[in-house]
């Protein structure tokens, strides 16, 4: 699995307010769920590319894509094998299955699987882009800005912070078992499951020890002092950020409107509908693309204002 943790970089995307990036990314995820039309999904995907390039995280994103493509392919294959709808039969199995009949592979099932896979690529790309360009503590600050309770946000943030420690602990505990003669990956599934269960117990025990130590360290630094907590690095929203936030949210608002207007859907079964249509069918995706890309010039503008 590729390394997806935040790296501080001097790029316009890193400099963009985390609130804007989260609004933009969140919007993209919602849009990928509410749209079914391949053109719209493709547009959502294309809008990510300039952001990735400008953030200088192309290599990390590409390695995520490699991993996601396998997932996407499996969606296409599974859908093709198990969805027998569609008029254009490409392949017919030479046998019959009870209750299902004769399995077939249809063009429509492959197309539907492909668009679902592209949706997955969009969602995973958004998560990796956010992970790579938004500082975890900034995510916490945004959640606080949204008036979520501090203690819950802190607990979430601490859990994320200790994930790498948990992974290291697991490696060490597994090594501990191996050096005591346990073949962790040998035997039947029950034995494997039992061995893994033992590791989980040790892991839990380590985590509890760690939790006590962290709590102790926090208490020693006046956590819960009863005084009103101050947030040193509170997310401040300048006018430009507010404008950028508006721009970041615009695609979501526009997308919802487009869907309410009845566009953005697509018929896969029983046969694929025509991609094209009237002027409005092409104009709306083009507007969506423009709105999605509008965050890029704003990022440059923000950098320029900051430099001035």
């Amino acid at each position, binding site marked *: 699995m590729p390394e997806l943790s*935040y790296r*501080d970089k001097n790029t316009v995307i890193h400099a963009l307010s985390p609130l804007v990036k989260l609004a933009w990314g969140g919007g993209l995820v919602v849009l990928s769920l509410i749209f079914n039309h391949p053109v719209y999904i493709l547009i959502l995907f294309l809008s990510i590319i300039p952001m990735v390039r400008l953030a200088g995280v192309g290599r990390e994103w590409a390695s995520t894509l490699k991993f996601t493509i396998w997932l996407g392919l499996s969606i296409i294959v599974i859908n093709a094998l198990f969805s027998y709808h569609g008029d254009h039969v490409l392949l017919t199995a030479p046998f019959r299955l009870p209750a299902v009949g004769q399995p077939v592979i249809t063009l429509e099932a492959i197309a539907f699987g492909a668009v679902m896979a592209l949706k997955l690529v969009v969602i995973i790309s958004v998560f990796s882009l956010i992970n790579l360009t938004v*500082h*975890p*503590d900034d995510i916490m600050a945004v959640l606080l800005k949204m008036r979520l309770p501090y203690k819950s946000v802190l607990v979430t*943030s*601490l859990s994320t*912070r200790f994930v*790498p*420690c948990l992974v290291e602990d697991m490696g*060490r*505990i597994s*090594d*501990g*078992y*191996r*050096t*005591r*003669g*346990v*073949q*962790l990956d*040998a035997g039947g599934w029950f034995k494997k499951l039992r061995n893994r269960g*033992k590791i989980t*117990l*040790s892991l839990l*025990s*380590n985590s509890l*020890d*760690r939790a006590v*130590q*962290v*709590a*102790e*360290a*926090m*208490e*020693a*630094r*006046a*956590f*819960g*002092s*009863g*005084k*009103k*907590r*101050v*947030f*040193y*690095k509170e997310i401040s929203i300048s006018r430009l950020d507010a404008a950028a936030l508006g721009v970041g949210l615009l695609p979501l608002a526009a997308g919802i409107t487009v869907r309410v207007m009845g566009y953005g859907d697509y018929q896969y079964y029983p046969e694929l509908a025509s991609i094209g249509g009237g002027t409005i069918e092409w104009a709306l995706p083009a507007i969506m693309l423009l709105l999605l890309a509008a965050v890029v010039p704003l990022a440059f503008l923000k950098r320029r204002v900051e430099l001035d």
Partner: protein
Amino acid sequence: MIRIRELNFTYNGTERPALNKINLTIEDGHFVLLTGASGGGKSTLCRVFNGLVPHFYGGKISGKAEVQGMDILKTPPKELATKVGMVFQDPENQLVTTDVEREIAFGLENLGYPKNLIARRIEEALDTAGIAHLRFARNNELSGGEKQKVAIASVLALHPEILVLDEPTSELDPQSAEEVLRLLERLNDELGLTVILIEQRLDRVVHLVDRMLVMGGGEILADGRPAEVMNGNIAGLGIGLPPVIRLMRELKSHNAALNGLPLTVKDARLRLQKVLQNVKTSAFADAGASLEPVLNIDKVWFAYGERAVLKNINLNIGRGEFIAVMGRNASGKTTLVKQLNGLLKPTKGRVRLGGVDTRKSTAADLSRRVGYVFQNPNDHLFADTVEDEIAFSLRNRGVDETKITKAVEGMLEEFELGRYRKSYPRNLSGGEKQRVALASVLVGQPEVIVLDEPTRGMDYVLKKKLVSYLDDYRRKGNTVIMVSHDVETIAECAERVVLLSEGRVVVEGNKREVLAKALLFSPQINRLAQALSGYGVADTTLTVGEMLEQIG
């Protein structure tokens, strides 16, 4: 000022008091060392200073305890945070946020300080701790030493009057430990901060502190200036004196011209130069290399992804040898020893155990012949009781229960664990866990035993017992390989030393060739011997015993 009177404390669920009738006064501006055997009450006493005991841990407490005029028994830790700053042993588990600046701000934010004051305090703390260059660094990318400095900076930002540190260097390599101690010295010296430090390695700190307290069994066993405490009767205190002090105590007992006790090599050198005469030339008889090979490391390379960690390692290890593997952090020491039991397999080259390529076996199979003791004993402990823990690997091999019972009893006796046989291993103290971990590996009687930093954070008594056990084990024809930074222990017990740097073996040979005359990795006695070589002392002298042979 800290003032404690007749303080008793017992943790919930235990019978034995962790603190027993403690009477103590610590004046402002002092640098106090707190030492003694594991489980003696040092950490508990430190946690009294900032109220974690009793408020965080609970338990039964009686007596009086005041810090800067505040009654600790009535004041919770969060209210004492601006009076007493506390730094803990594990650098990983005391950092709460993800980057340095936010970490320093954490306590100040909790206290609700205005943002401009927080900004000023962050600047001060960064500069005082000498970590301004790390301001925007992510905590998980820092080294252990840097993490401890960040932890120190984060409590300094609260402007405490007292700084309490619970073994802050025990998880660090010698260079990082030195840097942290130098910082503490400066804080005490220049800012007048009261520093209370728990530390096992006396050689690192005795010359820095004004006062030394020795604890054991929940009581203060000795209290005074370091030279006074170490000059007195130390039997039963459970502390290990630095080699140079042990030497001077021996010499003083039959040389009236030697007064007082030196705390540094330089001090010892100056005193000895005045009285040194009749030096006997000594040739040290070291054991020769074993002829019967047990492990052969042949042109081994190992890489994590694209990063080469071991580069063309060639080593032959013989039966009955005691080998120490040394080197800076991240020099490849642990990666090298993990090749020996198959936990890692070479990317290129071969490791042969008794002629058999380790790539053809699993770590689980190799564990019958190569025992491996991890640095953190928790990584070994899975069972519900100590005796089940020790029996674990034998049961896993399907050994007959009668034989298992006999072997377990032997280990319980050898490591003095009989009284804990039914205890849950993870509930034991650090030293006790270490013993269980060792017993659980050694019960299988492997012909090679690998120990990764076994003495780190270990008290003197335990360390002495471990070294003696390993020496016996080696004499029975087994091979001992120990990764360690502890040059004094290596000088006492190893025969051969392998020094790694950047994944390569830079020096390898008899311990005298490697440790004597080295700048960084030489033991205290050798540094003294080098300075006294003009008087006829062999500059290859490594231990107190060897020095006494010549000048005693």
